[in-house]
C-alpha cells in the first residue's frame, strides 16, 4: 500500500513538471512581450526594455522557466505587478477559503448522493429510480452559474431566507460562516450530485446481482446487514473513483461560483488574475490548482485501493 502511494507520488513529479512547463509556456511565451503587456501600448521602448530586464524577461526561456520553477519550490512566488501585493500569502488565503467552501459542499453532498444512488439502485427501474436518476442528473448538467442565479433569486431575493453575500460581516463567529456558505455551496453540490448518485446506483445494481448477495440473503442475514455490510461497501469503489475524477469540474465550478457570489477563493483569484493579465498571480494559482487536482486524484485512488483488496495487494 505504501509502495503504491510512493510510486504514485513519484509519478506526479514528471506530470507536474510538464504541467508547469505548459503553464509557463502559455503565460510567458504566447503573449510575446511581457513588459509591453504590463505597461500597455503607451510606454516607451526603453521603459519596456527596462521592465523586461528588471523582471528577467530578457533571459533565455529555459533559464526563466528554471528560475520560476525553482522560486516556486523554495516558496518565493514573487509579487503581483498589478496589485502590488506578495503572491504567496494571497494565493494561500484564497486557497483556504476555497477549501472551506468545497469541503462544506462535499461533506454534505457525498453521503447524500450516495444514499440517493443506493436507494435508486435497490428499487431498480421503479418510478422512484427514474425520478431520482433524471432529477439528479438534470441538476448536474445545468451550468452552476445558472442554478446559482436561480437559487440566489429564490432564496435570497424572493424568500429572503439566506444572505445574498457569501461572507459574514467582520467579527462574526466562525460558525456563522457556514450560514453564509449554504447558498454558494448548493450549486457546487448539484455539480457532483448526479455523477455520484449515478455511480452509487450502478454499483448497487451490479453488487445486488452477485451470487454472494444471494448467499447472504439466503442464509438469513437481515436486510439491513446485507445492505450495509455487503452492498454499500462494494458499491463504493466506482463511486469514490468518480468523486476523484470530478474534482476537475469541481475546481471549474469553484471559479464560476466564487465569481458569481464574489467569494475570495482561488477560483475567483485565477479568473481575476487572468482578466487583469497578472502573470505571477495567475501562474502560481494555476500551478497550485494543478497540485491540488493531482493530490485529489491520488487520494481517490488510495481510498479505492483501501476499499478493494485486489488492488491493495496487487498494487
Amino acid at each position, binding site marked *: 500500500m505504501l509502495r503504491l502511494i510512493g510510486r504514485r507520488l513519484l509519478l506526479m513529479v514528471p*506530470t507536474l513538471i510538464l504541467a508547469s512547463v505548459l503553464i509557463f509556456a502559455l503565460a510567458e511565451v*504566447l503573449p510575446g512581450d511581457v513588459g509591453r503587456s504590463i505597461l500597455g501600448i503607451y510606454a516607451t521602448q526603453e521603459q519596456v526594455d527596462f521592465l523586461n530586464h528588471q523582471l528577467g524577461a530578457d533571459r533565455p526561456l529555459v533559464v526563466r522557466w528554471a528560475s520560476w520553477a525553482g522560486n516556486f519550490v523554495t516558496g518565493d512566488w514573487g509579487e503581483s505587478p498589478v496589485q502590488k501585493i506578495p503572491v504567496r500569502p494571497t494565493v494561500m488565503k484564497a486557497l483556504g477559503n476555497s477549501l472551506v467552501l468545497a469541503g462544506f459542499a462535499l461533506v454534505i453532498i457525498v453521503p447524500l448522493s450516495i444514499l440517493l444512488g443506493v436507494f435508486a439502485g435497490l428499487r431498480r427501474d421503479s418510478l422512484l429510480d427514474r425520478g431520482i436518476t433524471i432529477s439528479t442528473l438534470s441538476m448536474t448538467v445545468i*451550468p452552476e452559474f445558472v442554478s446559482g442565479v436561480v437559487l440566489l433569486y429564490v432564496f435570497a431575493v424572493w424568500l429572503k431566507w439566506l444572505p445574498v453575500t457569501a461572507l459574514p460581516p467582520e467579527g462574526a463567529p466562525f460558525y456563522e460562516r457556514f450560514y453564509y456558505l449554504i447558498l454558494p455551496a448548493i450549486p457546487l453540490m448539484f455539480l457532483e450530485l*448526479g455523477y455520484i448518485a*449515478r455511480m452509487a446506483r450502478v454499483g448497487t445494481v451490479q453488487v445486488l446481482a452477485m451470487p454472494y448477495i444471494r448467499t447472504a440473503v439466503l442464509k438469513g442475514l437481515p436486510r439491513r446487514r446485507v445492505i450495509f455490510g455487503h452492498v454499500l461497501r462494494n458499491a463504493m469503489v466506482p463511486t469514490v473513483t468518480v468523486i476523484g475524477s470530478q474534482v476537475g469540474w469541481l475546481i471549474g465550478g469553484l471559479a464560476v461560483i466564487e465569481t458569481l457570489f464574489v467569494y475570495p477563493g482561488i477560483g475567483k483569484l485565477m479568473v481575476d488574475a487572468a482578466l487583469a493579465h497578472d502573470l505571477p498571480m495567475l501562474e502560481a494559482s494555476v500551478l497550485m490548482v494543478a497540485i491540488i487536482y493531482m493530490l485529489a486524484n491520488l487520494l481517490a485512488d488510495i481510498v479505492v485501493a483501501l476499499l478493494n483488496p485486489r488492488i491493495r495487494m496487487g498494487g
Partner: protein
Amino acid sequence: MDEPRSPFGPDPDLAEEASWVDADPEMLELGAEAVADREAEVLQADGAAALEQRRQRRYLVRALLRSPTFMTGAVIVLFWVFMALFSTYITQSPTAQDAAAALKPPSAAHLFGTDELGRDVLARTMAGARTVLIIAPLSTMLALLWGSMIGLVAGFYRGYTDEVMMRLIDVLLALPIIITSILVLSLLGTGLTIIIITIGALFTPVVSRTVRSAVIGEREREYVMAARLRGERSPFVMAREILPNITQPLIVEATIRLGYAVFTAATLSFLGFGLGPPSPDWGLTISTERIYLQIAPWTVLFAAFALATLVVGVNLITDGLSRVFSK
C-alpha cells in the same frame, strides 16, 4: 483520471458491455459486410449486404423516433436551432435600445420585460442561442476530428506510438478544462475562432481515448485481418474498414462532448472570456445583468432558463441515442 461518461450517457449498468461493439452480433454482421462490400462483384453479395445495412439503419431510426427521451431532447434542441437562425425575423431587435423603457417588468409590449438599456429581453433570450450553437457544434467536430485521428493511429499501431501519444494526451488533462481554457483565452484574446479551437483541443484527449479503446476492440477482428491480407495499406484499413465500424460509439461520444461543449462555452462567456457586449449570449447576459437580480430578475432568469433547457435537451439526446444503440 478518466472522465466519467455524460450523466445521461450510456447506462454504466452496461459498462461490462463497454465492448458492446464487439459483443453485438449485429455489429459482427456489419463487420462481415464491410468485407463483403469490397468483394462485391465477385461474391454478388453486395445487393443483400446493402439491403441488410439499410434495414439496420431503418431499425435504428425507428427506435430513435419511438424513444421519448430522444424525441424530447431533439424537439428542445431543434427549437433553439430554429430560434438561433430565425429569431430576428420573429421578435424585436435584440440590440435596439430604448432608454425610456429601461428595466420594465414583463408586459404586452415586452413579454419578457426589458433590460437596463431598454432592450427587449424576449428578443435577446431567443437570439442568445446563437453563439453557443455556433461554438459548441464546431468545437465538438474539431475534437472528434483530431480525437479520431489520434485514437485511430494510437489504437491501430499500439506499442511505442500508442504509449507516447497517450502520455502527451495526458499532459493536456493535467489541469481542469475550464482552468486551461481561461489560461489560453486570457493570453490569446477572445474571439469565436479561438474559443472554438481551444474547446476543441481540450476535448480531443477524451475523444481520442474513446476512439482508441473502440479501435483496440476492432483491430483483431477478421475483417481487419482480411483487409491486411489483401494488402491494403494501413491508412485505408483505418479510415475505410475500422472507422465505419466504430460509428456508433463515435456518435454517442459526439453528443456527450456536445453537451459538455455547451456547458463549457456558456461558462467561459459567463466568466468574461467569451464575446463582449452587446452580444445577447446567455452566459454574458447572466454575468452582466446579475447586478439587477434584486430589482429586475427577469433580465437574468429568462436567459438562465433558456440555457438550462438547451443543456438538458442535448443530454436527453445523448441518453436516447446511447439507450437505443446499446440495446
